[in-house]
């Protein structure tokens, strides 16, 4: 587990003292994110991130780090900007014409939004799994082989076969589909489809996997399988997961970040967030006063 940073450049409140408040539209936000958003060593770090859709600002001054091989869950009421935020981490928001991201986002110290960083190469390093399972209308094999083929990761067929097998195995799907690799991926059940999408994402060995509510379209049993899978994957990958289910966040993540209307209110170790939230907004959400 990563060590939390206690004294850093950004002023951090300590203890349970109510930090300085900022009142916007009748809601009291902390001036800085409370808890431990920043880490000593991190895989990715985000500083002063603002995201705009045209004239509308969706994310306000977010500062947070993601540690190596950590699972960080992002929770918050719907419309709080957690999906927007996660999509700006691998520049998926580039595809939205009116969207603009400012601030500093780095991956291993490299600026994600610099002109030197290539979005295509970036997305190969920071993979993504989406809310709705979205297998391509191709065979299971071709779905998994799509990424490696794109990036030229396998020079021989055998190599590609191996990548497909390991990816499907890691995604816990190999046993179920090994006899029907040539059948369309869209014919699988919802949970299998989502695991196929995860296999597809890990086939190009990304360093970070972003998951945008990966279980929201699945039944409880399929959800449980995906959650197990996340726990296993976290040994090799850094994972950021957006979820609207607090229980899920509690089950799978090491740290939890609470977003409220585009602002990052609190980041803490998951256990702490759910047992002793520091900020009243977090507490209100956790106890189900809204959400």
């Amino acid at each position: 587990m990563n060590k939390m940073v206690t004294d850093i450049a950004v002023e951090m409140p300590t203890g349970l003292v109510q930090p300085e408040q900022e009142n916007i539209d009748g809601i009291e936000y902390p001036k800085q994110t409370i808890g431990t958003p920043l880490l000593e060593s991190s895989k990715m770090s985000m500083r002063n991130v603002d995201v705009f859709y045209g004239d509308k600002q969706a994310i306000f001054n977010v500062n947070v780090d993601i540690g190596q091989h950590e699972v960080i869950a992002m929770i918050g009421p719907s419309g709080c900007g957690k999906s927007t935020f996660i999509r700006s981490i691998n520049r998926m928001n580039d595809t939205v014409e009116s969207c603009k991201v400012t601030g500093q986002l780095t991956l291993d110290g490299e600026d994600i939004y610099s002109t030197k960083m290539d979005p295509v190469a970036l997305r190969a390093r920071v993979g993504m799994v989406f809310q709705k399972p979205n297998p391509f209308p191709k065979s299971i094999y071709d779905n998994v082989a799509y990424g490696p083929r794109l990036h030229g990761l396998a020079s021989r067929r055998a190599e590609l076969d191996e990548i497909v097998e390991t990816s499907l195995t890691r995604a816990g799907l190999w046993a179920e589909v090994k006899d029907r690799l040539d059948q369309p991926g869209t014919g699988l059940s919802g949970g299998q489809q989502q695991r196929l999408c995860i296999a597809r994402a890990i086939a190009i060995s990304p360093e970070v996997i972003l998951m945008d509510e990966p279980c929201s379209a699945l039944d409880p049993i399929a959800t449980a399988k995906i959650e197990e899978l996340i726990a296993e994957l976290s040994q090799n990958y850094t994972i950021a997961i957006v979820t609207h289910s607090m229980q899920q966040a509690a089950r799978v993540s090491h740290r939890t970040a609470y977003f409220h209307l585009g602002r990052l209110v609190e980041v803490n170790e998951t256990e702490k967030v759910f047992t002793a939230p520091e900020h009243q907004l977090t507490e209100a959400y956790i106890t189900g006063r809204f959400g």
Partner: protein
Amino acid sequence: MTNLNKSRAEQIQSSLAKRYRAEKRFQMYGYAAIAFGLLCVVILFTDIVSKGYKAFGQTYIQLEVTYDASTLGITDVNDSQQLALADFHGIVKKALKSRFTDVSGRKAKRDLYGLISNGAGYTLRDRLVANPELLNQTETLWLVADDDIDTYYKSIGSDAGAFTGRMSEQRQGWVDQLVESNDVEMRVNRNFFTQGDSREPELAGIRGAAMGSLFTLIITLALSFPIGVAAAVYLEEFAPCNRWTDLIEVNINNLAAVPSIIFGLLGLAIFINFFHVPRSVPVVGGLVLTLMTLPTIIISSRAAIKAVPPSIREAAIGVGASPMQVVLHHVLPLAMPGMLTGAIIGMAQALGETAPLLMIGMVAFIVDVPGGFTDPATVLPVQIFLWADSPERAFVEKTSAAIMVLLAFLILMNTLAVILRKRLERRWL
């Protein structure tokens, strides 16, 4: 792990340049496709406008004409029988002979008389009828020149040099003389907008065809709009889910894609050969075009009805309205702009249609401007087809000009449809 990642990253990086080149190439193809499409539009319009704009002008020649009673062979201007037989072209010939006194020989004389259009006689007759005191008087008049002269005069000074075509050098000389003495002038071609078809390009106009189109479209609209709307209302609001309804739907969708010429065959076999509707009249043209445009109108009317939110129907049913009242009071008024848009687009389609009308005899050569639904008529696109087939060079510019008029109408109708659609959108958003 980190090492492995490094090599992966390098591997990815290495093929990136190639992939981006492919990306650029693909974008270029797309760009080229768009450019090609736009270029086609530009070429088409420039070609037609450059060929046709001159048709809106007409060459006139100034002559001193004497309404000589003996040449005309009349004694009483008010006697219509005498006027009908009077030789008005004779006095044109005389005027030409006195202008160019040194012409001799049969062929040369025929050439000379051919400077002025045959239609000039009608102009003179109309003047004489309007002013009977002109008999045996002399006046200086601008008369319509023959199409060869018109083409020649229009092409003087063009890049390709003057177009002489069938003209003898002698004729060119006369025209040049007339030009020098300022007796040739370019005027607005009124014949083009006021006359029916003619074998003489300088006398041919589009009024007959335009009126034919108008009458045909009135029939088409009067039949296809009510029937189309009624069918759409039935299918959207009343039709039970059964095979018959499916059959109707399949039929409508297929008819929308049946080649238009097939509708011409239908019109020929059913309306003309079976029901003995007369050929070449707007009524039968309108009937055929009605069947052809119905699918378009039904499909767009259904879309308009679908766009009416179900909550409105539920509200009306909730206060006890009958299905018919729901349709008449709520659905139809709200869907009307959309239906009208569809109707206009259908009418634009009908206005531009040629092939089926050829089948039902609307391709005849008709000089008179039709005055009603049962007069033999032709329509604008068929007129274009007929002129495009004519050998005289002067008809090329007439054809292009007729196309310009047709396109102007179509653009007008489509603009109207776009405006209606815009208003409709505003209403629902």
